């Protein structure tokens, strides 16, 4: 059991998305106590060629940090950086850099990852802030000052771990570097995982974990990269995935949800003139939107809202 949530402000302007998503996820804390995460879109304000790397360092050894900085500087000069403490007292190193091509990001991440076992790149981002960690929603929100972040839309997750480890790296959202700034949160299990993953690996997708959510985000990115729009990709996923699932995908333009054909995982939505919101349960929607007209997401159904 996990909790998932998504919100879009229909006017496309910046709103208090960090605060709203924190409240939505806090209401879903009972669905997953292990870790939580946010993908908050629209507020970073980076230029077209600017990216942010989030890197976990397991110790505060200055030589280790210098090695990481040197590795990055060999590819592109670091423009700015900072160190943040994670909820487990590790260190999150965050730096901004420029890349001529988005596809340089994944090789750079791999090079940094290979420096040492104590260095793990959490993600590279352009139009969204990925915040995820072990612990409770409120602790994470406080630690990363999540409530202050503004944006146009967001997705989030509270995790009850069933299939893989409880650590920062396995916390949702997951993303991929096949296309830029796609992220995904998931409640459920993909039971034909290897059947989905094998063809993607043969096409060149590189997987970092054995987590089925990572497989889902690769699948959706692959479909969009092949010319599907978000709605078509989600509809095709309902045909191709086995198991109980409901998941929310976010792109820089909006969010969408897909639910398995047997309807074995929950999903509800509500919509006003200003907001489109999705969550595992109404208790989450009620934190951000009038819930007098809540709609069920039916088995096999897909709902999308793009700005």
């Amino acid at each position, binding site marked *: 059991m996990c909790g998932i949530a998504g919100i879009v402000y229909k006017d496309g302007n910046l709103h208090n998305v960090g605060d709203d998503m924190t409240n939505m996820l806090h209401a879903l804390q*009972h669905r997953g106590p292990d870790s939580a995460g946010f993908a908050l879109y629209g507020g970073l304000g980076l230029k077209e060629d600017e990216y942010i790397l989030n890197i976990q360092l397991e110790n505060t050894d200055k030589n280790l940090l210098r090695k990481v900085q040197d590795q990055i500087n060999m590819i592109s000069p670091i423009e700015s950086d900072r160190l943040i403490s994670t909820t487990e007292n590790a260190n999150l190193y965050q730096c901004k850099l420029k890349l001529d091509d988005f596809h340089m990001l994944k090789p750079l991440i791999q090079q940094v990852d290979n420096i040492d076992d104590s260095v793990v790149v959490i993600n590279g981002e352009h139009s969204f802030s990925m915040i995820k960690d072990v612990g409770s929603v409120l602790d994470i929100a406080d630690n990363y000052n999540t409530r202050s972040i503004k944006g146009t839309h967001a997705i989030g997750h509270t995790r009850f771990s069933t299939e893989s480890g409880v650590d920062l790296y396995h916390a949702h959202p997951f993303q991929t570097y096949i296309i830029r700034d796609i992220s995904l949160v998931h409640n459920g299990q993909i039971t034909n995982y290897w059947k989905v993953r094998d063809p993607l690996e043969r096409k060149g997708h590189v997987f970092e974990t054995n987590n089925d959510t990572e497989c889902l985000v690769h699948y959706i990115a692959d479909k969009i990269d092949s010319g599907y729009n978000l709605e078509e990709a989600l509809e095709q996923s309902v045909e191709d995935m086995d198991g109980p699932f409901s998941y929310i995908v976010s792109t820089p333009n909006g969010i969408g949800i897909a639910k398995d054909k*047997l*309807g074995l995982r*929950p999903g*509800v939505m509500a919509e006003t003139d200003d907001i489109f919101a999705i969550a595992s*349960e*109404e*208790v989450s*929607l*009620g934190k951000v939107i009038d*819930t*007098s007209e*809540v*709609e*069920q997401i*039916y*088995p*096999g159904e897909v709902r999308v809202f793009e700005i």
Partner: protein
Amino acid sequence: MADIKEIDSSTITPRELNKKIRLINNEYDKIVIKNPGAEHNLVAGIVGEGNIVIDGSAGYFAGTMLDKAKINGNAGWFVGDNMTSGEIIVEGSAGDGAGQGIYGGTLVVKKGVGSRTGEIMKGGTIIIGGDSGFMSGIFMMGGRMIILGNLGADAAESILRGEIFVLGEIESLGKNAITIDLTDEDKKCLKKLLTEYDFNLSDDNYNNFTKIVAESSRPLHGLE
């Protein structure tokens, strides 16, 4: 004058709320729960003749095993799960598994519900004012379900006994489910029941219902 007790649930947990209601249930004609906030398990496991109003939305398992409740908002999954008698009325919509396994009583949801409504129900009545989703009435073993909207795919999958009345479209029937004509007695019963719960249909509507029943009461044995 009715003796009514209001409880603000915004400052206490559902467990504390239920404990409190259990203690005072027989002292008041009606208990009104304010600010329910769509929390789970509201008034669940309270067996008896209480008359409880949830003034807003409830989460999962609302009213489980209770005899009389009214929810002035929506309800999450499994509203009225295992109810045995009395009535639960939801003014809004409800999630999956509404009325799962009920033995008796009447569950009324004024708007639509999710999937698997009335799963393994053994008796009682479920009335849905809107649509009901996929596999509603799966493994139904008794009782009566009335759907005023459309019914999703694989309706009444593996039904053994009981009956489902549908006013809208049926996407598809499940195994062992067949449709038959309504009798005049069926129409009379429907009208009486629906009028009682303020669903005022025209006389013509009662000719438009479809009735779903089991083809065989022992489909798994291949014997009749």
